[in-house]
């Protein structure tokens, strides 16, 4: 069975190579090749999952050691995979949602002449993401981490003829770079401290106090920085909204269901490190809580349907991050929410894509309205996803979110009350912004407008390749939570890897559920009062300062501009001054010196055999002289 692990990665990797190198002759079948290979990977995942289920709970870790990369001296970088319950969960999520979104893209990208390349990138992403979660050491994880970053960059900027897409890709790249440096530093510190990269050695050593708390805190904070970059958490959240410039399937797969959750994976996987560094753990919780509210507020104000959903993604990952920061009380529920969120958010994005597909790529919700009659399948599947995310009782979001709220109270004391309050508030905001999206898109009267070319929209249901994935994901959004909670199935499955602890909650499970449902209903009601009862203006009213700020992503870019770009500019200007006056002299001097040296040395090479012979003779004499001299002294 171990040898199957590599087989998970092989199909998408092969697909990426074939599709990207294959050239135009593959244009007609490329998308089906890509989809088939993603499905193959999913099939292998199912086989492995069945095998793991057949084993004892304590015996569900498979490792496959392929080879060592440059095993010289004490440096050991293994190309090795580790499949345990945690990575298996991710593998199933990635391959299943991945396959569905491949299928969806067949229809969605039908009219794009670069469709083959798109599928090549998607396969590349799958391979990198699988590598990320299957790696058995931090170095290999880093390879996958950079790989998904690359795929994300390529896909956000896929429509590179649009300047906005090119800029968004660049922004995602630059912001992610900040996080990646954090991961690099964390890995370097880890290696110098423990002398290894392997999970199997670093984590036990961390748990046994193999390093001082300061070191562990440093590693933890650096890992958190990395997670913030990849998962779009405050303060590195600014790229996610712009990333919606990419094709919608990309937003669904990479920027909702899988890649952006890699940060949560990193934190949960490194649980032992955070357990040994309470300060870093607190930082994780703070980041999660802040982002939870931040993303929700942004989501409330956006009129662009994808950007509103992006704000929601940010906020939901904030939930996961917060849960991951709680330690063993929250690990399992962070992952559970991650999985259910993967289903309903991917479904919501696909629904949004389907709407855009029918509306001439219009994204402004103020120009939708009344679409439920024209796109019934999209309406129903989107609606089920909507009910799941707001935590409607007995749908998947209800289970996973309530568990996180309960775990937040379980932190105990004042912190418990604050975190519990924040998560409850978040639940209300979620209900509000999701209801707003729902009403603006599918209810009310038509506010359609012709696009820039003057074409009237003719909304229609999307083709079969697009609706099937939406239906499957909707079914998942409805039942996943219930199935997970049947006999504590999910908790029992995951807890051997992540550990589990009962929190110290001042309130009972039932109270939490009632409170969350109440808050949710309030949110829905407010949204309905605002948008359902009154006609929606097709241009956004000016609004109060909060709304205006939220529309500008709570001034994140203004903040970055003021905090980093301006000082950066001044710094550069200063440096340029110093550079001109001081460094240039040195640098140009060095360059000139090398150039001059090169030119002068070159002149020795005059082409005459006789002078070459003389130089050899001189060299030989020098050699002998030095040898004799060394003996003499």
């Amino acid at each position, binding site marked *: 069975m171990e040898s199957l692990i590599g087989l998970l990665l092989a199909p998408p990797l092969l697909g990426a190579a074939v599709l990207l190198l294959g050239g135009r002759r593959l244009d007609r079948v490329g998308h089906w090749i890509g989809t088939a290979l993603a499905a193959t990977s999913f099939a292998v995942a199912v086989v492995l999952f069945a095998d793991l289920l057949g084993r004892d709970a304590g015996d569900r870790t498979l490792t496959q050691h392929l080879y060592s990369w440059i095993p010289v001296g004490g440096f050991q970088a293994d190309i090795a995979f580790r499949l345990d319950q945690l990575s298996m969960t991710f593998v199933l999520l990635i391959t299943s949602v991945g396959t569905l979104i491949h299928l969806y893209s067949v229809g969605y990208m039908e009219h794009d002449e670069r469709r083959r390349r798109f599928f090549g990138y998607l396969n590349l992403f799958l391979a990198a993401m699988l590598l990320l979660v299957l790696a058995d050491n931090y170095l290999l994880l880093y390879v996958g981490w950079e790989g998904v970053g690359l795929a994300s960059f390529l896909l956000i900027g896929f429509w590179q003829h649009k300047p906005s897409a090119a800029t968004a890709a660049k922004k995602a790249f630059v912001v992610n770079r900040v996080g990646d440096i954090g991961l690099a530093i964390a890995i370097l510190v880890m290696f110098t401290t423990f002398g290894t990269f392997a999970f199997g050695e670093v984590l036990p050593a961390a748990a046994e106090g193999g390093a001082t708390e300061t070191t562990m805190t440093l590693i933890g904070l650096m890992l958190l920085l990395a997670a913030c970059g990849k998962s779009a958490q405050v303060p590195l959240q600014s790229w996610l909204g712009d990333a919606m410039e990419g094709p919608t399937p990309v937003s669904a797969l990479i920027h909702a269901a899988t890649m952006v959750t890699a940060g949560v994976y990193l934190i949960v996987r490194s649980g032992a490190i955070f357990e040994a560094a309470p300060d870093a753990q607190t930082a994780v919780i703070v980041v999660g809580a802040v982002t939870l509210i931040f993303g929700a507020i942004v989501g409330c104000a956006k009129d662009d349907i994808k950007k509103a959903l992006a704000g929601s993604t940010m906020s939901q990952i904030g939930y996961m991050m917060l849960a991951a920061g709680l330690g063993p009380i929250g690990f399992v529920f962070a992952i559970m929410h991650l999985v259910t969120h993967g289903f309903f958010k991917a479904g919501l994005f696909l629904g949004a894509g389907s709407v855009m597909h029918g509306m001439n790529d219009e994204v402004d919700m103020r120009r939708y309205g009344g679409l439920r009659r024209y796109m019934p399948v999209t309406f129903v599947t989107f609606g089920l996803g909507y009910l799941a995310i707001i935590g409607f009782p007995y749908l998947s979001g209800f289970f996973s979110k309530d568990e996180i709220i309960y775990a937040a109270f379980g932190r105990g004391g004042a912190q418990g009350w604050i975190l519990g309050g924040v998560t409850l508030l978040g639940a209300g905001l979620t209900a509000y912004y999701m209801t707003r999206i729902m009403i603006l898109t599918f209810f009310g009267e038509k506010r359609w407008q012709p696009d820039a070319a003057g074409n009237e929209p003719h909304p229609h249901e999307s083709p079969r390749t697009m609706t099937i994935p939406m239906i499957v994901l909707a079914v998942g959004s409805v039942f996943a939570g219930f199935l997970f909670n049947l006999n504590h199935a999910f908790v029992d499955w995951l807890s051997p890897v992540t550990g589990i602890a009962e929190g110290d909650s001042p309130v009972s499970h039932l109270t939490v559920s009632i409170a969350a449902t109440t808050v949710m209903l309030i949110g829905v009601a407010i949204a309905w009062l605002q948008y359902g009862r009154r006609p929606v203006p097709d241009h956004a009213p000016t609004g109060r300062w909060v709304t205006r700020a939220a529309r500008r992503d709570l001034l994140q870019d203004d903040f970055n501009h003021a905090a980093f770009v301006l000082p950066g500019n001044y710094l550069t200007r200063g440096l340029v001054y110093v550079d001109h006056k001081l460094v240039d002299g040195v640098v140009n001097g060095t360059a000139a010196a090398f150039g001059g040296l090169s030119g002068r040395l070159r002149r020795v090479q005059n082409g005459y055999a006789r002078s070459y012979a003389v130089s050899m003779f001189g060299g030989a004499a020098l050699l002998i002289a030095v*040898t004799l001299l060394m003996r003499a002294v």
Partner: protein
Amino acid sequence: MSPVIHPYTAAPALLTQAQERLEAPQIEWVALSPTLIVLGAAAIGILVEAFAPQRGRYLTQLLLSVLGIAAAFAAVVGLAASGYATTRAEIAGMGSIAVDGPTLFLQGVLLLVGLVSLFLFAERRLEPAEHGRAVDSFTAQAAAVPGGPAEREAVKAGRTTTEIFPLLLFALGGMLIFPAANDLLVLFIALEVFSLPLYLLCALARRRRLLSQEAAVKYFLLGAFASAFLLFGIALLYGYAGTLDYAGIADVVAGSPAALDAGLASTMGNDVYLLIGGALLMMGLLFKVGAVPFHMWTPDVYQGAPTPVTGFMAAATKVAAFGALLRLLYVVLPGMRWDWEPVLWGVAIASMVAGAVIAITQTDVKRLLAYSSIAHAGFILTGVLAVSEDGVSSVLFYLAAYSFVTLGAFAVVTLVRDAGGEATHLSKWAGLGRRSPLLAGVFSLFLLAFAGIPLTSGFTGKFAVFRAAAESGAIGLVIVGVLASAVAAFFYIRVIVLMFFSDPQESGPSVVIPSPMTTSVVGLAAVVTLVLGIAPQYFLDLAQQAAVFAFR
């Protein structure tokens, strides 16, 4: 032990005695089979030249050479599989040839390099056909005066120099012996056996024949000069030790001399002879690897020689010569380590720095690669200076990695052509990436490997040699190496920038579509470069297992 007979002092009576005791030498046919097969094929190749009709020679020679090299490679693999490289070693040929790990590893690499070069030699689709016949990169008739009537006649008659195949095989045969030589005389003979065919091959370019002949003459003159130094060093060492056998000399160096030879009483055991002899010997080998200050021939010869020959020479000579240098330093002269180490430090640093710095201002691709090879000689010397088993294995790996990158790079150079033949001036390469992205991409891969960027074989090799050197305390050398790598990266990447980010020239060169032979060479080199960068473990293990020299 009977006293060693010295011809100048021995009495006639003793001589007859000696002759009576002379026995037929015992030859270990199996252990020596790789070399014997290659030399045998070369000899048959000469017969083919003499007796086969002109028309069929090309194909016959090509097949013969491929079969010969493949059979020799199979023999190497067979020897290694029967444990020669790891569990047992043999000093064959009356103590003159060592069949051990390093020998077999390097012979394997050399044979592969030879095979790959053979395909470049045999390529006949690059030059435009002359008088309806496909021609290769070699002159129609070497003996004809360039541009003279004899040459025109030869071209008209459709002559081709099929002698290149036996010449290649002879050179290869000598190279196979060179790193295996366990006796100074065998070392010298092997040196000449592989050098002489190379001098000839350098002179055989079809285009720019004068440049090619000039290169050959220079190479020959300077090579002869270096050989003389080497021979002088051998003589001095013989005077010092009274024997030419590696193990015997090592014994004397280590302070346990064999019985004193009356005829050498004045010199034996005198360290001055050892020091001067050792230095001259090293110089002879450093000339072959192209290390500073014995590097002057490299750029001129690399530029003038036909490009397939340059590729072969650049890759194979380095492998063979570094093999011999390793054996000399690790088997014969470990006792005078403290004497040669500082000297080689200087040579390594000078090579790395001078190679990298001078390459900056080069404008010709082949000369650029020549200076890069000088810098790489310095990097490899860094591994040699580790003086440890890790050092040996890292050098073995580096040589294997480097030779394939080099062959690939020169193979690409043969493809970029304009009306005047190969367009080697760098300015003509501007914008190549826009016209032939695939070719420029592969060439960039080779350049990145030269620069030592991770995930290419160049990085693995450099990492291994620097690591080995650092672990044995040669930190200073490693620092210089890393700095020189940084300087070198500049000019490698400059070429990439030139290819991809400059506008193509109006009358720029075009990329010729070659036969599958050159295509497969380029492809193989690219694959090896990537595999040795991404998954090098197997090959590192192989080098590790092969890193023990047989001593006796």
